[in-house]
């Protein structure tokens, strides 16, 4: 990890609501190295999307209130960048791929025009030159007949093609960091695999850093080097993919892994984590996960465990990490 692409320290985000403040993100640190692929995993509502949008400064304030200690991107301190400064970073230096290509593309504009905008905005190309670049970009992500497809409106393309249009758009200016928010959730399984492989190939080939936000551990296994597991606004575990899949330390990570059906699972049933994610305004005292945790002891109810470092750069937020008391079988 010689070169850092992104360093995020102590990100906190709250949303005001009629009943009080919604505590979406509670002090998250993220490090992404050059060419590295990071996954941010958690259930919906755990704050993972808010975290990823905060990195791009796309969280609207008002109403949200965001605070962070450090945000360094490609060697620049962008923490205090003004909105207009951010505009020239976004798209050019860091790009985003959203979940649902149908709603993420402007329905009344051709796909080509929407990619053209990237080149016209960030590379000051004219319309014609931009279109040539667009055609190339579409070709790179494996869109057949790119010149023709560029003239199509989003609704005229298939789901997989639309997602590729988003990929082409994100890679258009060859940014340093791409944030992919649930990039394949809306797609069929077979198309998912195709889109993921395009994403991974492009990322490796062009040495782009990648932050994948997902709840889907199969995506994580496919694409990430390092995983951050997030629960109720906090990072509960950070580990390399291999480490995590081999031996999760946090009971929540273990629960997530156990709930993934696998072909080797002869028992043929899902293991569920009991209970549900706490409401962001009614978080329990102590460790947020303790009401759902098999191993919770009195200490867990009383105070929040710190994110403590373990060997090989792993970090776990748990007083009683699982490494000492066996595998996931009894979760």
């Amino acid at each position, binding site marked *: 990890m010689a070169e850092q692409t992104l360093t995020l320290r102590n990100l906190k985000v709250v949303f*005001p609501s009629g009943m009080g*403040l919604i505590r979406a993100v509670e002090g998250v640190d993220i490090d992404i190295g050059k060419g590295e692929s990071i996954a941010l995993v958690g259930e919906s509502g755990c704050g993972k999307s808010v975290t990823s949008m905060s990195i791009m400064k796309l969280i609207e304030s008002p109403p949200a209130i965001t605070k962070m200690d450090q945000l360094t991107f490609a060697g620049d301190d962008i923490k205090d960048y003004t909105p207009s400064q951010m505009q020239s970073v976004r798209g050019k230096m860091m790009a985003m791929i959203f979940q649902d290509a149908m709603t993420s593309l402007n329905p009344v504009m051709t796909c080509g025009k929407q990619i053209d905008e990237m080149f016209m905005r960030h590379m000051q190309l004219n319309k014609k030159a931009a279109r040539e670049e667009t055609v190339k970009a579409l070709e790179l992500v494996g869109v057949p007949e790119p010149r023709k497809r560029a003239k199509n409106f989003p609704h005229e393309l298939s789901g997989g093609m639309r997602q590729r249009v988003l990929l082409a758009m994100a890679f258009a200016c060859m940014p340093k960091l791409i944030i992919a928010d649930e990039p394949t959730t809306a797609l069929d399984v077979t198309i998912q695999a195709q889109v993921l492989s395009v994403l991974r190939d492009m990322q490796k080939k062009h040495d782009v850093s990648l932050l994948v936000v997902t709840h889907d551990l199969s995506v994580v296994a496919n694409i990430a080097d390092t995983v951050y597991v997030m629960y109720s606004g906090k990072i509960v575990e950070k580990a390399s993919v291999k480490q995590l899949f081999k031996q999760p330390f946090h009971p929540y990570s273990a629960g997530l892994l156990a709930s993934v059906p696998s072909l080797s699972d002869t028992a043929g049933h899902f293991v569920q984590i009991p209970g549900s994610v706490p409401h962001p305004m009614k978080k329990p005292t102590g460790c947020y996960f303790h009401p759902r945790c098999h191993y919770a002891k009195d200490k867990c109810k009383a105070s929040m465990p710190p994110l403590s470092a373990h060997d090989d750069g792993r970090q776990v937020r748990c007083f009683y990490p699982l490494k000492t008391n066996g595998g996931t079988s009894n979760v």
Partner: protein
Amino acid sequence: MKAVLKSIGRFFLKRFKGIRRFIKRVWAHRQGKIGLTMVTFLVIVAVFAPWIAPFDPYDVAERTTKGLPPSTTHLLGTTINTGQDIFSMLVYGTRVSLIVGVSSGVLIAIVGSVLGVMAGYIGGAVDSFIMRLVDVLLVIPTLPLVIVLTNVLGRDFWIIILIFVAIGWTGLSRTIRSLVLVLKNSNYVKAAELSGASRFHIMIRHILPGTSHLLIMSTALSSAGIMVAEAGLSFLGLGDPTAISWGKMLADAQSGGALLFGAWWWIIAPGIGIFMAVFAFMRIGIVVEEILNPRMKQSSGVYKIFKNLNSSYVEDVFNSMDEHAQIGEASSAKGGAHG
């Protein structure tokens, strides 16, 4: 036949209970409170009009009080040409507005929902017939059509109501129809179909209840709309000629020279009557719409909360998120967002 009556009866009984619960929800909104209070007030005024009105509004015999400005005896003054007490007329006018507005509104809810459910659930020729009818009624300008129909059918009170209903059901039935198209594919309706329930049974027991909030909203909003239309009609002198109504008061004011002689009270008073009634029903309709579809309003509310946030409170919440934060802080940071 008996079964049909029974199920209709049961339907309305259930609705009645639902309405009581619903009024509570409307009351919870500030706007809803305003609307409900005003409607209750208007209903009381309409029912007890003879006791509230200090003078006989029909009395045109007393010629000494012509054109008086508002005073303690004549709260809203008197008319220029006939010397009638305007406050008393205003009180009596409530009756016409409320009866025409509310009964048309309720009838529209019934007709509109029945036709909408039929169009959506039965589909086919019934659907296209009803929807073509809606399209046709939507392109004929309403007020001229009402005028022509009153000319042909007569200007009796009830005929006017029926005309309003015959024209006013279109919007609701279209909305209900699209809702039914969604509900039709829902699992519980499919289950009822599989278990062999009759079409009529499914429409009454499974589909109509799914539209009940919409019906209350429609009743409130179309009552308001029809009160405006009725006022317009009687303003043109085409309403029921025997009744005192706010629209007719305005027409009398205009023809009686209120504008020319500066008798502003004669114009303002009925205007306020119309405004109050329409406003009250609109509030209720809008609150129900908000309950049905809360997204729009919430967003604006959040900005207000944001503006009123106490920065030190936000700071406390942020600090409580830090690693070294102590036990209990997380829970103490709840509540009191308005700081």
